């Protein structure tokens, strides 16, 4: 990202303005802790969408949608999402703002979110000095929010009813005090290492859907990406607490919560992000895979994972080279001209051959010896590169590189789709289907239905059950609960170890 450092070489930069794209906007910074005490209408700030990367980004689209729906003057093709509702919209698509109070009041797992960020039953600075950022329904963006307890957090969310909220780093001081502490005393200390995979980045290899649409065919891209990244995070980097979360529309986020990951500084985050970077170059680089051979063990393992789903996901699912014209893209990635000529001829004469057939034709013709110049090793490597080019995870690396980048919290509701950002089981990502994810509206209806059906139940009997247990959100909250318990257990163990070590050293 651009950093305009040449202007003030000798000036110490505000650590809060360090590198996160969000933090460049000072409009945003005007809205600090004051909002909490003010009872007057919340000031509206136009959200700097650009600060988040680009408008095609999933999370960002949410904000853009919300923006458009607010403006009655602008002709908008998208349905109103956050506008005041007079006629109830469909419960399955989009978000009805009136569902938000119920969702926040009865379904959002605040306690688990608190424990997840705090790693300990009672509040520590991991939670109290943690930045939250709220996007309100009028698009005001409040940064540097922080809370002393889980209850205070829940109360404020229920009061402001944000359309979403993001989680930032733990700072060296309370974010609300950042104006009164010395500049150098306010700096980000730790945050989960995060990854962002968004379907937008697959648009040039995706044929089944366009824009914000997704289907189970293209969701396979994300499934495969999760598998590749998750495995490397565990095996190569030794991380154990990796939480995958659906972004609400067409992507997924990873939160690596191990202590070791949380304390990485920017240069080390950049190193990890680059380790995962296999596709290089922008729109103009015709071939984005340039790897040394033999492949690095990480790339080789990733390739094996990709190879397993290449047939279903790409050849059958996307069928990217069916037309003569699109097949040229494939040929441009192959190394031998004589082989290409033979393939071109075959495909021109035999009409409508699918990508699956065309992929098989490559080896078939090569074995027939149609080319005198063909180097089999080169062909093999080129085919490996094609698999990587089409299927290797496309990460938004900038998100991972900065300690102070904010990312949408799990269990937020996507303002565009109404779907809840639920966890995805990283060990079995193929079991996740975004179409199955409940929307806030569906969940509200499920609670009402349960209450209706169980009207006759004694009230103590009824109160035993949490509201989420009455809904299809249940398995997701339970998964999250298990994840958080595992993380807390590990933290306690480490803490005991540290204490034992330090007391041990005192004894001797």
């Amino acid at each position, binding site marked *: 990202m651009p950093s*305009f450092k*040449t202007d003030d*070489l000798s000036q110490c930069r505000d650590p809060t303005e360090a590198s996160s794209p969000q933090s460049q906007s000072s409009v945003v910074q005007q809205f600090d802790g004051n909002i909490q005490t003010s009872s007057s209408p919340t000031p509206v700030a136009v959200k700097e969408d650009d600060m988040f990367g680009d408008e095609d980004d999933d999370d960002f689209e949410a904000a853009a949608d919300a923006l*458009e729906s607010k403006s009655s003057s602008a002709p908008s093709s998208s349905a109103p999402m956050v506008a005041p509702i007079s006629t109830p919209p469909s419960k399955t698509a989009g978000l009805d703002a009136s569902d938000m109070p119920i969702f926040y009041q009865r379904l959002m797992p605040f306690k688990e979110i608190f424990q997840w960020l705090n790693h300990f039953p009672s509040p520590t600075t991991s939670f109290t000095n943690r930045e939250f950022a709220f996007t309100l329904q009028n698009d005001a963006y409040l940064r540097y929010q922080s809370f002393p307890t889980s209850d205070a957090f829940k109360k404020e969310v229920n009061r402001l009813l944000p359309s979403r909220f993001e989680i930032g780093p733990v700072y060296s001081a309370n974010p609300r005090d950042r104006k009164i502490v010395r500049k150098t005393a306010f700096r980000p200390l730790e945050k989960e290492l995060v990854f962002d995979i968004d379907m937008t980045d697959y648009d040039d290899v995706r044929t089944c859907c366009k824009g914000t649409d997704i289907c189970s065919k293209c969701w396979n891209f994300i499934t495969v990406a999760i598998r590749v990244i998750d495995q490397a995070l565990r095996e190569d980097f030794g991380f154990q607490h990796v939480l995958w979360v659906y972004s609400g529309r067409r992507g997924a986020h990873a939160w690596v919560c191990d202590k070791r990951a949380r304390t990485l500084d920017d240069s080390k985050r950049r190193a990890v992000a680059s380790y995962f970077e296999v596709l290089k170059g922008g729109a103009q680089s*015709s071939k984005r895979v340039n790897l040394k051979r033999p492949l690095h063990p990480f790339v080789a393992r990733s390739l094996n994972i990709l190879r397993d789903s290449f047939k279903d996901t790409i050849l059958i699912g996307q069928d990217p080279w069916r037309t003569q014209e699109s097949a040229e893209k494939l040929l441009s990635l192959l190394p031998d001209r004589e082989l290409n000529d033979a393939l071109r001829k075959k495909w021109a004469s035999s009409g409508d051959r699918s990508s699956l057939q065309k992929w098989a034709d490559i080896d078939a013709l090569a074995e027939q010896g149609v080319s005198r110049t063909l180097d089999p090793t080169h062909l093999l490597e080129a085919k490996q590169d094609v698999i990587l080019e089409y299927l290797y995870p496309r990460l938004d690396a900038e998100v991972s590189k900065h300690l102070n980048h904010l990312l949408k919290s799990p269990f937020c509701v996507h303002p565009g789709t109404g779907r809840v950002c639920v966890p995805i089981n990283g060990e079995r990502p193929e079991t996740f289907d975004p179409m199955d994810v409940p929307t806030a509206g569906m969940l509200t209806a499920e609670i009402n239905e349960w209450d209706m059906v169980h009207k006759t139940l004694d009230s103590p009997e009824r109160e035993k059950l949490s509201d989420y247990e009455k809904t299809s959100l249940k398995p997701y909250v339970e998964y999250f609960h298990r994840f958080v318990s595992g993380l807390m257990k590990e933290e306690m163990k480490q803490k005991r170890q540290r204490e034992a070590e330090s007391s041990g050293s005192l004894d001797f």
Partner: protein
Amino acid sequence: MFRAQKKRVLERTTFGHEVEREQAYPDRLNMYLVPPLAEITLDQFEEWAVDRLRVLGEIETCVFRNIKAKQMEQSVRPLMEKYLPLSPNSTSGGGNKDMQLEEERKKDHYSHFILRLAFCRSEDLRRRFVKAETLLFRIRYLSVDPSERQALLRKYDFGWTPVSDEERDDLLPNLIFASENSSAPFEKTVKSESYFKVPFERVPELIETRRVYMKAGVAYVPSSLQLSLILSEFSAKLERALEITARALPRLDEDDRLVPILNHLSKGFVAPEYVPEGGDHGDGVKAWQVDSLVEHMPLCMRTMHQALRRDQHLRYYGRQQYGLFLKGIGLSVEEALTFWRKSFAKTTDDKFTKEYRYNIRHNYGLEGNRKNYRPMGCQQILSDAAPGPNDHHGCPYRYFSEDNLVASLEGIGIQDRSVLKQVKDDVKAKQYHVACTRVFEASHRTLHGVKSLIGTGVGMESITHPNLYFDRSLQMAKEAEKIEQASDEHAAAAATIAA
């Protein structure tokens, strides 16, 4: 610790009655982990710092010009010998010689710590100081005797765990595949190579480029990459120390003798950055004129301009890079708003106002922190975010595939095979600014009678900034116009006479 020490230097700037504690420097290579203890005069303070700065300044200039390590050593060495000599122990022979060794090492030690004070004060200065110091250390490390390197490894505990032969043999295929050099004899090399295990956090640059095998958070580093490990230790330690110094520094500001010197020093370490001439073009450039000026733009800006015209849209980094460039050629903020509004033809007024207007005004210092941003130079463009699949920003020489680069260059009229080949070679050598300079040279040959202001020849200016490319191109066109006019008048006059 250092602050307290600094205080002593300040309080007694001349050698007073106190007996100076002798510090021994048995080795040439210094990791600068221990701050100096003795006092020096204010004159020495400044003189030594300035001498070190000359060496670091040359190193930074080399970095800026993208000069390779080998050549860098050649151009830095004379300065090192003159201003910061470090003689080997073998030259000692008692008496004066020993004194001289001690003095050289002391100067090296002190000057480093003095410059820490001057360069700890902003993130940018810290980053550049660490980079230059690390490169200086690298040059020295490579030039000392192997025995001196061994001494360094013995002296500092780097926390490396040797990998047993057994473990190495178990992991052999992985180690081979992770190794950089995978040509035929590599297997033999790996078998005899010794490896260290280090937590991956300690070798970020080896992780970044996937040059080592990783297992469960541990990086397996061959001893051939030891230098890289040492350098990363060196820079990591220095970075941390600078941050600590920065936090302690405000208290130092009370001393009014030192502050001016430190300010002066940190200003001396500014890499040459081109300042665009835009705004001097009379009334400035109007939005409608931009299309006609494209021919003077370097390839990066043309690429974005074309993408903008084709897609009627440009993504964030593209808008930043191109927008600031246009500011540099003299587009006022009003004209910039007009230009972008018209260019984003598919975008509604409402959306434009909400999503783009602020950023444009921000770049002109009219919003937010009100900083008047300067156009980005090549170095910044090269080091900033790499373009993603739908992006058009960045340096085309670096990010375009060879085919696309050639096609683009042919598109702007570079047909000469030999020029194209040279450009490709420059790109392979990662000399992107040389490639761009060459393209400037080749595309401005046709302007007869005007001497190219830019070139790859000795002593000629080379492209380090997109606006430099633009300004020089426009300047040459104007001169060519003048010459043409003059010769037209001349011809007209001659014709009149003939008639």
